[in-house]
């Protein structure tokens, strides 16, 4: 595909003895907002980590913007799961956002006032400017997630990977984060989001990737977010599914 910013071919990965990803193939077009959905243990986080070389691949090739990760590292932004770091670490919100600029600042140099201003702007965008000097352990879960998002925003990347940015945040934060993701998309950026809530998929994402060890279905949300694909991906674990004016409604029993 000409317009593809991410191309994954024959990717597989394992944790110790268990293969968690098996022959994953997909290609993401520029300017899309994709939700990666699947049951627990389907390999959603592992997929992002193997694509970004944070977890070793068994096989497969991944191309970013038609080339290797190393050559385009600066054009890629990553928002890890909130639980992946120790929030007791002695640092404040502004400092965490500044870390997003470390790659551009380079070794031996300190952040300038211009960098700090950029970080402040990112904090403002996620509605956290008032908390800039707050120790990060004193932030709520939703606020921590916003700080992580701000750190990715200052990177000014073209392709973003976000691991469960909406997990455990309140409705206001969820709305704020989704507004920003949609703005990113409108600015021509590409965003991939690991997502766990099937109810909101049609509202949030223009593309959806069903994952359970391998790609079960991938395409435009309105075309492939169907009862069949959900059942295929989740097996028998979701019982109540019905279709209503083109929307799939999930009712858990």
């Amino acid at each position: 595909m000409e317009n593809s910013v991410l191309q994954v071919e024959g990717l597989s990965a394992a944790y110790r003895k268990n293969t968690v990803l098996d022959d994953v193939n997909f290609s993401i077009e520029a300017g899309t907002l994709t939700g990666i959905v699947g049951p627990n243990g389907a390999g959603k986080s592992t997929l992002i980590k193997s694509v970004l070389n944070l977890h070793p691949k068994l096989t497969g090739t991944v191309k970013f913007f038609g080339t290797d990760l190393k050559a385009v590292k600066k054009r890629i932004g990553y928002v890890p799961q909130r639980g992946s770091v120790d929030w007791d670490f002695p640092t404040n919100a502004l400092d965490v956002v500044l870390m997003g600029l470390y790659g551009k600042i380079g070794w031996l140099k300190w952040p300038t006032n211009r960098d700090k201003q950029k970080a402040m702007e990112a904090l403002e965008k996620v509605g956290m400017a008032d908390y800039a000097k707050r120790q990060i352990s004193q932030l709520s879960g939703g606020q921590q997630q916003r700080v992580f998002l701000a750190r990715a925003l200052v990177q000014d990347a073209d392709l973003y990977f976000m691991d469960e940015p909406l997990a455990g945040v309140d409705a206001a934060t969820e709305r704020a984060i989704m507004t920003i993701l949609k703005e990113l998309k409108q600015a021509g950026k590409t965003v991939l989001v690991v997502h766990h809530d099937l109810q909101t998929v049609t509202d949030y994402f223009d593309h959806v990737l069903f994952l359970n060890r391998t790609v079960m279905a991938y395409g435009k949300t309105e075309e492939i977010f169907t009862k069949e694909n959900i059942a295929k991906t989740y097996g028998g674990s979701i019982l109540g599914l019905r279709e209503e004016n083109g929307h799939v409604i999930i009712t858990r029993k």
Partner: protein
Amino acid sequence: MLSLLANSNLQWVLFSTMILGVAAGTIGCLAYWKKQSLMSDSLAHAALPGVVIAYMIIETKDLFLLIIGAAVSALIGAFFIQTIQSLTRITEDTAMGMILSVFFGLGIMLLTIVNRTAGGNQSGLNNFIFGQAAAMIRSDVFTMLLLACVVILIVVIGFKEWKIYLFDPDFAKGLGISIPFMNGLYTVLLVTTVVIGIQAVGVILIAALMIIPAVSAHYWTHSFKVMVLLSAIIGGVSGALGTYISALGSGWPTGPFIVVTAAVMFLISLCIGKERGLLIRYMQYKKQQRMYVQQRIPVQFKTREAEK
């Protein structure tokens, strides 16, 4: 008492244990946030057989060569801990516990053998267990000073890279920082700090000089930079003060005095530390309680009155 300070050899020794404390405090912060405080202890114990074997080979007490022996032995210990952990289902703390005791046991065994041989008990190798700073000669002091300064410099140069590496290694990798390189460099810094300290502080207690200053510093600040600085200062003061006190008596080991000094500073930090100290927390709680009582109770009283 003050005449002790006029002794030029003691001045050098004091200065070197102070710089050692600064280096240990700095690296201790890295170990603290890498959640590997106990790793420094294992590496220190694992260094003992290396010291003794190096002495058996060269048959003279050249600190630089003994330090190399210690470093090799500590690195082998680190390698075993890593390997045991990745190849078996044994967890890191169990692996460290095993390596720590087995290497230390081996070291003591070899030391006993050396001490039995002719002239062996004059070797002063026993000093490596509890530390004897006064036994250091001028060249030992220089070796220690130089290596400690290199360690401190490496942390200062890559300060923000160390910070992101400790806080969020996955993100650091995304920024192009090589995690295997940082892991390797961290181990080298840790081992260097441990081995240059073993003559002055001893293999049993050198880890305390890395752990205690870092924990104490965390009670005072919410900034990583300030924490490292404070930890370095606490380490430096403990090193110098402990050495000075141990020099008051003849043949008093240095390590225990350094560690007890550091522990006193920890107690002070625990009680009155500005950010997490017990006293501060209690005072904040009391203040909050007073404010609540002053502001809320009259309001509640009034509303109740009004309701009536």
